[in-house]
Each structure stands twice: as C-alpha cells, then as structure tokens.
C-alpha cells in the first residue's frame, strides 16, 4: 500500500500545472457563447499560473498544496465551460471568469483606491478601539473604583450593535469619516474590553504574590504580570472585535462614508454591474482574511509559550 501511495504523493504536484493548462486551453480555443471581454488575457493568466505551478513542482515547494492547486485548476475549467462557453445560468447575475478579470484589468485603480480607504478606516478605528479596550479592561480587572464608575457605562453601551448608532453618528459628527472611525473603535473596543477584563480578573493571585515579595510595584504588576497572564484572553477579544469591525466598516461605507469597498459595492449594485460586485467581494474577503491572518501571526509570536496548537 505504501509504495503506490508514495509514488502518488511524488507525482501529484506535477499534475497541478497541467490542470491549469487545461483551463487555459479551454478558454482560448473553445469559442465563447457571447461577446465576453478579456478572454485571451484570461487564457494567458491561466497559462502563467500553470507555468508557475510547474516551477513550484520542480522546486518541490508544492507537496501539501498540490491537491488544492489541481482542484482550483479543474474548478476554473468547469466554471469556464459552464458559463463562458455554454451559458447555463442567466448572464448579468452570474458572471464568467473573464468578466471578473476584466473588472480588475479596467477598474483596478478604483478598486485599489477603495481598498486603501477601507484599510485606512479600519486601521484607525480598530487600532484605537483595541488599545482603549485593553486599557479599560485592565482598569476594570484591577481597580474597584474604576469598575464602579465604568462598568455601568460598558453594560449600557457595549452590547448595542455599533451599526445602530450609525444614523445618529452621521448627524452628530460633521465628518462621516470621523463618525465611522468612532463606531469602529466601539465595535473593536467592546469585546476587547470584556475579554481583557475577564483575563485580568482570572490571573492567579499567587502570581502577584511572587512579584510583590520581590518588591514589585503596581506598574510591574500591571504591565509585566497581569497583561501577559491575560494575553490569551485578550487575543480572543481582539479577534472578536476584528469581526465586528468588518461588519461595521461595510455598513458605514454603504451608508455614509462614500468611499471604500462597501461604497464601491453599493455603487456597483446601483449600476447593475455585477462583475464589479463580485470583484469587490473578492477583494474584501482577501482583505478580511489577510487581517485575520496577520492577527493570528502576531498571536503566535506573543503566545509562543502556550502549548495549544490552534492553527489559522
């Protein structure tokens, strides 16, 4: 059993390139069912991916990802045949791969601009929310006085979906951008606050005793004992906050900011430009997954001491 298995594993990477060549061939030689844009560039793109995969196979960099590379190549072939060549589904709502590529080729500037706007808004809002969330969470976890005054406010405002405040925020705050940043901060801040609080409150008091007998002051106890001990929980809060931030971001862009990927998507819908919508959706999903990946990379670094093996 092991011998054919091993051979299969050795040969599989070499099948990835040909799968994409097949997609290129079908795209290029089989006539389109309608007048689609960018058919030849798409074929060239498939060809380029196929060549890159062949090179990766030769360099032995493909082994674990080979099945996915093959499946994607075959998937694009199937999509190409079903929609571009046979036109099985009604056209404006269901696009072809070349429609999508065409959007990127013709509208990349506007898409890129929207992405940068979204990222900028997220970075400021989420950054402030996360920072404040950790600070407030530590305060709640350590100081009864702070807890007395702040806890009721958190309980009142925190559970409110930030989106519910959008209409009000756009009226009260003159700049739509500023209003959105504030709401993003709120979105990121609430989960971060609660989980930081819970993490700090759960710190083993013996950890404080050890440091105190060695002469540690409050500053050390907070920054070098409570914070690192609460870090696993804090990252759960940061992760949840990121999710709520994404949702808030999209709605804020659709309703008020008039820029960013959410706005682009709404604009595309208004013009019934469905391929543009799909393209924006793809960019947005890459942005979100990229940011989550970044957060997990930071987490793996900060929490290297943990034995858990969660892998994003």
């Amino acid at each position, binding site marked *: 059993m092991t011998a054919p298995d091993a051979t299969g594993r050795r040969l599989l990477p070499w099948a990835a390139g040909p799968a994409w060549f097949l997609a290129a061939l079908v795209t290029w030689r089989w006539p389109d069912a309608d007048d689609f844009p960018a058919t030849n560039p798409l074929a060239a793109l498939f060809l380029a991916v196929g060549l890159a995969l062949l090179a990766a196979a030769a360099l032995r960099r493909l082994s674990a990802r080979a099945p996915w590379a093959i499946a994607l190549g075959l998937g694009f072939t199937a999509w190409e045949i079903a929609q571009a060549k046979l036109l099985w589904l009604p056209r404006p709502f269901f696009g072809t791969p070349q429609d999508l590529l065409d959007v990127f080729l013709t509208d990349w500037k506007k898409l890129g601009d929207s992405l940068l706007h979204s990222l900028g808004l997220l970075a400021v809002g989420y950054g402030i929310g996360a920072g404040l969330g950790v600070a407030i969470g530590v305060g709640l976890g350590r100081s009864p006085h702070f807890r007395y005054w702040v806890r009721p406010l958190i309980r009142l405002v925190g559970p409110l979906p930030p989106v519910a405040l959008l209409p009000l925020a756009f009226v009260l705050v003159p700049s739509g951008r500023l209003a959105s940043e504030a709401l993003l901060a709120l979105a990121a801040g609430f989960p971060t606050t609660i989980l930081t609080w819970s993490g700090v409150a759960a710190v*083993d008091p*013996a*950890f404080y*005793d*050890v*440091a*105190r*007998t*060695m*002469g*540690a002051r409050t500053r*050390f106890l907070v920054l*070098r*004992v409570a914070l*690192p*001990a609460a*870090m696993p929980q804090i990252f759960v809060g940061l992760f949840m906050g990121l999710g709520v931030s994404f949702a808030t971001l999209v709605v804020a862009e659709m309703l008020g900011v008039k820029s960013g990927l959410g706005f682009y998507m709404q604009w595309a819908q208004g013009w019934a430009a469905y391929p543009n919508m799909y393209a924006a959706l793809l960019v947005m999903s890459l942005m979100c997954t990229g940011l989550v990946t970044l957060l997990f990379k930071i987490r793996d670094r900060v929490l290297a*001491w*943990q*034995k858990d093996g969660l892998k994003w």
Partner: protein
Amino acid sequence: MVTHRPLGLALDHIDHGYTIGGTFTPVLDDISLTIAPGEFVALLGPSGCGKSTLLRLVAGLEPPRAGTIRAEGAPITGPGPDRIVMFQDPTLYPWRTVRGNVALGHDIAGRKDPESVDAAIELVGLKGFERAWPHQLSGGMAQRAALARALVNDPRVLILDEPLGKLDSLTRLTMQTELHRLWRDRGFTALMVTHDVEEALLLATRVVVFSPRPARIIGDLTIDLPPHRHRDDPRLLHLRKDILVQLGHSADW
C-alpha cells in the same frame, strides 16, 4: 555578589484566621517567636495547621489579625525584597522561560546580572533548560526553578515553604547539601517549612513544632549538632523520635 546582613525577626502574639463559607476559622493562635539573625529555623506541623499562613504573614503579604511582626525592630507593613519567599507551589510565570523566571527579581529591581542567574540555574541542576517554558518541566524541575528564582535575590531572610517536597530522594539529598552550603556561605536567616523531620534536623539550627489547627507552638528545640551532620548520628535519631512524639506519634513506634 553582595551579601547582606541577615535579618532578625520577632513575632509577638500573632493571631490569624480566615472566614470560610461565613464562619470564622482560626488558623494561628498566639504565636510568639524570636529568630536571631542567621538562624536556620525549621517549622514542623501537621498538614493544614497554618504553616504557610505564618510564612505569608512574615513575608508581609497579609497583616496578622492581632499581634506584630518586626524585622530588626521595625514592624513589617508589606512585602519587600529583603524577605524572599519560595512558595509551596512553584508558581512559575508560564509566559517566561526558566531563565526569565529566575531573572524575575532582577527585572523587578531593574538590575542586570546574567552571571548570577546562570549560577542559580546551574546550582539547582537546570543547566540546559534555560530556554524551556514552564509547561515543559516536570514537577520537581519546576520546584527547583522556583528555588533558583528565590536564591538569585540575595535575601536577608529566605522563606522556604516545603522547598524540596516534590523531589526524588536522591535529588533531595543534593539540594539539601546545596541549601546548607548556601546558608553557611551567605549567612542569611532561613525559615523553612518541611514535612520531613530528618530534613529539618539535618539543616536547621532550631526546630519549631506546631499543633494541629489553630497552630500553637508546642515544641521549640535548639539543634546543638555540628554543621556537618550525618543522618545516622545517634543524637539526630534520638531528636527525631522526640519530635515525632510531639507531632502525635505514639512513643513505642
């Protein structure tokens, strides 16, 4: 390495207790004890009688309900680096490596002294594990790391709560020798809780025996034996029997 003068301690009519589930539980009952600078005092008593509690009070982590504790005449109002505690549980910080844990006292004091950190790690036999995370250590190794973390601080009083409780008998003998040597070389005052009567007799200059909870002092013996003791010394065996009787063993055992 700077060696500080040892600290003398005076416990004066200490009472303490906790409220557990609404009812007050007395733990320490009128403890008075004067410890001269440089003494090595072993505390013996049944489990749950209040030994660790007494150490917490001496460390300054909690104020006693009644009575005063003085260090060199001045009342103890809080913890301080002159009285270093090795707790009953290792309580290593999981986010610090062994090396980082041992260097904790230095970090708090804002001092950099990697040589003494290395020396302490080597002393407890953890050389090669400097970069290990606490979850990668065995129970005994974690306890030795905690011992190293206490020792690097050059305390004037070293407070040890069953420091060698989790070690196998052979490692235990080595660590006992090391502890004794350190105490003689550096001359700190040592206050050590142990369940092992023989260990108390091998290391201490004085053994204090407590009653079951609430702890009262029921025995206070000066161990007048030479510093290099042999565990087969007939005087030591005799003392051991005395102490076991005080702890409640029948005399014909």
